């Protein structure tokens, strides 16, 4: 299951990154809080496939499917 599959209101722990993610993106996502072991919740899932809103600690980020589907959650 990836972060993009998380429905509104659901939360999960980041387990890993997909192997095809660029190393720079992986580092950046880790710096922003999306690193293995971190609790992420999907606070808003707008309709029509718009980027979803995820909460990490006290920050909310919007991620589109191209990047959220590279983060594995469990």
């Amino acid at each position, binding site marked *: 299951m990836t972060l993009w599959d998380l429905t509104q209101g659901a939360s999960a722990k980041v387990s890993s990154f997909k192997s095809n993610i660029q190393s720079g993106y992986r*580092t950046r996502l880790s710096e*922003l809080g999306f690193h293995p072991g971190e609790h992420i919740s999907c606070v*808003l899932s707008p309709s*029509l496939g718009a980027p979803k*809103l995820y909460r990490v600690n*006290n920050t909310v980020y*919007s991620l*589109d499917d191209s990047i959220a589907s590279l983060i594995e959650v469990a």
Partner: protein
Amino acid sequence: MPIASAAKIALIGSPNSGKSLLFNRLTGLNQKVANFPGITVDIASGQSLDDSSIQYLDFPGVYSLQAISGEEKVAVEAFTQALEENLLDTVICVVDSTRLEKGLIFALQVLETCHNYNKPMLIAANMVDVLDQHSMQFDPQGLAETLKIPVLPISARTGLGLSELPGAIATANVPPQKFESDIIASDESINHLHAQQLAEQHGPKGDLLINTQTRLDSFFLHSWFGGLSFFVIMYLLFQSIFSWAAPVMDAVEAGIGWLASIVLPVIPVGVATDFASDAIFGGIGAFLVFVPQIFVLTLVVGMLEDSGYLARAAVICHKPLRFFGLTGKSFIPMLSGVACAIPGIYAARTVESTRKRWLTYLAIPLMPCSARLPVYTLIIAAFIPANKALGGLLGWQGLAMFSIYLLGIVCALLVTAIVSRSSAELRTDLPFVLEMPPYRLPSWKPLVRNAWNRCKHFVTKAGKVIFMVTVIIWILGYFPNYGESLGDSWLGTMGQWIEPVFEPIGLDWRYGVAILSSFLAREVFVGTLGTMFGIEGAQEDFSSLAQQIQDSGLPLGSGAALLVFFAIALQCVSTLAVLQRETGSWRLPVQLFISYSIFAYIAALSVFNLVELFT
């Protein structure tokens, strides 16, 4: 004390850390762009309001010192190069104390860099006023002791703690030691684990802001309410450019007219008066009139950005614009381009990704700007009957206007879709990860200051180029017969030379001259054509000129071709000059001018032949 001997203090921080607000607060209006040899990004510099021996330097906001995009690399290199060349005395790392863990990941990178370059640093923990509002606290003293650098709790918004900043700078007189702890982890995650531990030990505890923010997000990103509020806000933005700026634009025009009426009678009649009247007052008037629009748009876009709405608007627009190779943040610059390309190009600064901004630059000049309106109105009045259909609901002229506006937008999206797919470099870009800043009331002072600086930038930088081209076109149109007849001028001769170019679309040399002169600004086309047909004040009286065009026997195909040509061609010296200033080179404006001219000509030729085939 002169700036040269002042202590140079760098401000560095991530976007949304409040760094620029702090810089504005510390320096007031005493800002200029720092001139560092070899450094290509704009670093604002300003003398401290409280202590003239301190000069603050505002480095571009970056999320990390490990850059992943070209633009970030340039910004990070600017910082490390300034350290390397010993241009800085102390570094202030600004962090958001409400999101301490994230701020500390960045601060630890800065600490390591300052340790490597032997530069003292301190942390300015911003937004403590927000912590106070939520009755939350953090432990700056403990954090300072652990990191062995000064940590100053401040609020750039309220000014809290800022008076202690010079003292803290003086205290930070030794380079930081490398931060070490008992955590053992890989290089990639060590900073994060350190930051997590430090935030747990010294940071504020508990939930902050999120509940209100989520409620507002649920509204602004709701399928219906979100769409509706987006429409209303964009409508207001659009109105602000057209309506709020209009009276000031009229006032600017009237002011220049008034000044001309005083100055011109004093100058001896002849070339000097004509030059002052047409090139100086006419030329300056033509570009100064954009200033109110730039001011209003910069102010409104800044307000939307500061309030947190711009990030939400980017989320709403991201998916549809991604299909055309753009990003959600391209929407506002493009919408602004419908009023005028110049403020639109300035607004594109909000697009962080260099590639997406570059694609946005391609789209903006094709958006149907207001300068095209007089041309469209004239041609439509000359060719399309004022009849209405469907019981008066549908006017043919209105439909034609709508179609030509739509054509510009479609062309803009088509161009970006094709160009973004044409190169692998443009297809791959930063992923869409956008921090949703908290909703807040905008701070007016920095916004007004920013709008003022933007206008100043336009007048002083782009104004020079615009004025130069104005003078060249005036000389070509005035000599060798001293303004007696535009047709016999060098410009007129050039129009006759290029007549074979416009002949295939059924246009004679007069239209050629009008098109050439419209390079200055599109609306000049109407005035020039009026002069060619011998009608003074053509811009105020469309019907007579439209009638003249009709009576001259210009075919319908040529009218349609002219509309299409003006919808695509980039005839606007101001747009080209601003593009040059924003991209730092003439490459993009020249490429766009040539390619859009060819595109416009081919499209106009095709439309002419198509219409002529069916009429």
